[in-house]
C-alpha cells in the first residue's frame, strides 16, 4: 500500500508540474497573441487545450489526494488498489491527452479525433473516484 501511496504522490506532483507548465505555455501564447491559438478560427483549439490544462491539473490533485488517503488509511478498507491505480493513471493520460489532441487538428467547432480518448478516460476516472469514495467509507 505504501508503494501505491508513494507512486500516486509522485505521479500527482509531476502531473501538477506538467499541466501547470502547460498553463504557462497557454499564457505565453496569449501574451504573444499567437494566432494559431487565439484566432477565432482556432476557437476549438483554445477550448480543447484549456480543458487539457484544467483536467490534467485536476487529476494531478486527485493523485496527490489519493496518495495521502492511502498513506493515512494505512491500507484498510481499500479493495482492488492496483486496478484503481491503473484507472487513475490511465485517466491522467487519456483525459488531458484527448483534449490536447482534439485541439491539434479539428473540424470547425468539432474537435479532432483525439477527443475519442476523453470519454474512455472519463469512465476510468469516475470508476477510480467511485472506488476511492467507497474505500474511504469502509
Amino acid at each position, binding site marked *: 500500500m505504501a508503494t501505491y501511496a508513494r507512486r500516486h504522490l509522485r505521479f500527482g506532483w509531476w502531473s501538477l508540474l506538467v499541466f501547470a507548465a502547460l498553463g504557462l505555455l497557454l499564457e505565453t501564447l496569449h501574451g504573444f497573441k499567437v494566432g494559431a491559438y487565439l*484566432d*477565432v*478560427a482556432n*476557437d*476549438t483549439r483554445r477550448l480543447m487545450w484549456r480543458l487539457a490544462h484544467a483536467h490534467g491539473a485536476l487529476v494531478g490533485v486527485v493523485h496527490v489526494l489519493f496518495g495521502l488517503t492511502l498513506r493515512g488509511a494505512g491500507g484498510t478498507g481499500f479493495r482492488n488498489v492496483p486496478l484503481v491505480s491503473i484507472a487513475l493513471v490511465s485517466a491522467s493520460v487519456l483525459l488531458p491527452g484527448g483534449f490536447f489532441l482534439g485541439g491539434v487538428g479539428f*473540424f*470547425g*467547432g*468539432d474537435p479532432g*479525433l483525439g477527443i475519442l480518448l476523453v470519454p474512455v478516460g472519463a469512465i476510468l476516472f469516475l470508476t477510480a473516484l467511485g472506488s476511492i*469514495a*467507497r474505500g474511504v*467509507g469502509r
Partner: protein
Amino acid sequence: MIPARLGPALVATAAIGAATAFGYELLGRRVGARPEQAISDRPIQVRTDEYVSSSACQACHPSQYASWHASFHRTMTQVATPESVIANFDGVTVADVPGRPMRLEVSGRELWAELDEPDWDGKGDAPPRIRRRVVMTTGSHHQQIYWYATGHGRTLGQLPAIQLVSERRWIPRWSATMHPPNVPLVSESGSWNGVCVVCHTTQGRPEFSTPFGSEALFTQDVDTKAVEFGIACESCHGPAGEHVQANRNPWRRYILHLTGQVDSTLVQPARLSPQRASQVCGQCHSLWEFHDPSDERHANRSGLPYRPGDELATTRFIVQPTTNMGSETMKRLLDQDANFVRDIFWSDGMVRSTGREYNGLIDSPCYKNATEPSRTLSCLSCHSMHKAADDTRPLAGWADDQLISSAQGNGACLSCHAPFGGTGLANHTRHRADSSGSSCYNCHMPHTTYGLLKTIRSHQISSPSVQASLDTGRPNACNLCHLDKTLSWTAEHLEQWYTIPRPQALGEDDRSVAASVVWLLRGDAGKRAIIAQALGWRPAQQASGTNWMAPYLGLLLNDSYDAVRYIAARSLKTLPEYEGFEFDFVAPQEQRLARRRRALEIWRDSRARQGRSGDAALLFNPDGTFIAERLDRLLAERDNRRIYYRE
C-alpha cells in the same frame, strides 16, 4: 429507509440538481429580460419555418460566425441601443430638418426624439410636436437611419435626419439620396415594415392587413416580424432547422468531416452553379418586383418564397430591360410609373443605381456567354461572405467590400483571361503594367453607378466604347480617367489600339471639349455626380492633372441636387490647395455661394502658377478665364430631368 452508504451520493445528486435548477432559472431570467413576443411597438424577431437564427450556427462555425458578425450585413438592421447607434443622441439638437429642430436624448438605455409630426395631416397652423422612442436602426457602413415607434402597432416612422457615418454628422434624410430639388418629401412611415424588411432582415414578413400603400397607413393592422434582424446566415444558406437537428448526432458530423461528403441538409452557395450562387446575392442586390399582386400578398404573410438554391426568377420578376422590356409585368410596372426603368437604367439597359449589382452581372459577357461553370463569372468570383483563413487583412479591411484577397487586383479576371497577365498586360492595355491604366476594373468596371452619396463600379463588365457614350450619355472608362480629353481623343485611341471604328456621329463639342466637362455641364444629376467623384479620384487626377478642376467643382458647389454638392465638395478637398476647405452642402444658399466664391478665389490666386490657361478643351481662355460663351451654352443645354434612384 435509505441505506447509510447511499447518503453522500444522494446529497451530491441533490446538490447538482439544485445547481442546475438555479442556473436554468438564472438563464431563463436573462433571456426573458426582454422577450421579443412581449414587445408590441416595433417589429420583432420570431423563429419560424425551420429558421433557427445565427445563434444556432456560432458553436459549430465560429470562424464563419465571426466574419459574418464583423460584416455590415449583420448590422444592416439593429435594435436601437446606446451600443448600436452611431450618432450622438445625448442632448443633441438637429436643426437641418423640416420644421422645427429635432431634439434627441438618452434616458437610461432608451433613445428618444422630439420632432414635428412627419405624418401631419395639414390641419392647424403647424404640425404637432411628438416625442417618440427610437427603436430600430438601418445601416452602419455609410449612413445610419433611425426609426421610431409610431404607436400604431409595429409600424415604424423615420427620423427626418440621418447620420453620415464618415463625418459623424446629422444631415437631412433627403440630402442623403439623389433627391430631386423641389420635389416634396413623402412620409417614410411604414416604409421599413413594407419595404426594408424584405431585404434588410432574414426572412422578414411585413404582415400588413392590406397591401402597403393601398390605404391610409394608420388604418392598417401591421404585425411585422422577421426571423432575425440584419442579413444573417440563413439569408444565404437557407433555413437551418434540419441541418441543426441532423448534426446533433456526433457520428454524422464526424463521418462528414472524415469523408468530405457534402452535407445535404443545408445550402452552401459556393457549391451551387455560378448562376444559382449569384442568385443568392441577387435576391437582394437586384431590382425586382412581384409578378402579380397575389405574390405580394403571399410574401406579406409568409415572407418571400425564394430559398437559396432555387431559381430566383421563378418567384419574382427581375427587372432587366435588355430581356424583358416587352413583358406583361414590365408593362404593368411602367403603367404604374413611366419612369420606372429610366430612373434606374441607362438607355441601353445597363443598371446605373447601386445595390442592383446582380442586374449588371447577368448582362455581363463573362456571365451570359460563359460555357463552363469554372469560367463563369459569379458574385463569388470576387466576393466572399466569410474572410478566408489565409487572408491576412483584418476583419474590418475585408468587411468594406468583402472582396476575396485575389480580387483586390487583377487576379479575379486573370484567372480566366490569363493571356493578359505578365507581359501580355501592357500589350493589351497600352498602359504601364503597374499603372492604374492596367487595372482590369478601371477599364471594364468604371464608376458609372451611383448610390448613397458615392459612385461605385459598374458590375456589368463592359469595354470602353465611345459609341455607347454617344448613345446613352454614359461616361466611358477612358474619359473617366483622362478627364481632360475629348471623346474624339478616346475614339482615336480605341481605333488605333483596338480597331474599334471611330463613330461618325461625333459632334463639335465631342471633338473639341473635354468629355468630362461636357458631362459635368450638360449632363443630368447622375452624370454630374459621376464626374464630381471622378474629379476627386486619385488615378484620374494623376492622369489629368488637378490644376483645372477647382472651378468646375466650384460650379457644382451650387448644384440643385444636395448629393452632387456633397460629392463635389468632397472631391474639392482632395485638391492641393483645398485641404481643410470647409463647405456645408446643406447650408442655406447664401452661405454656400459665399463658400463657392471663396473656392474660386483660391483658384484664381493660384491660376498663374498652376492654371491650364489657353486649354480650349477645358474651356479656358489664354488669360485663364472661362470661354464663357461655350460654357454658358453647355449649361443651358443641361439635362434637368428628374433623377431619382431607388437607393
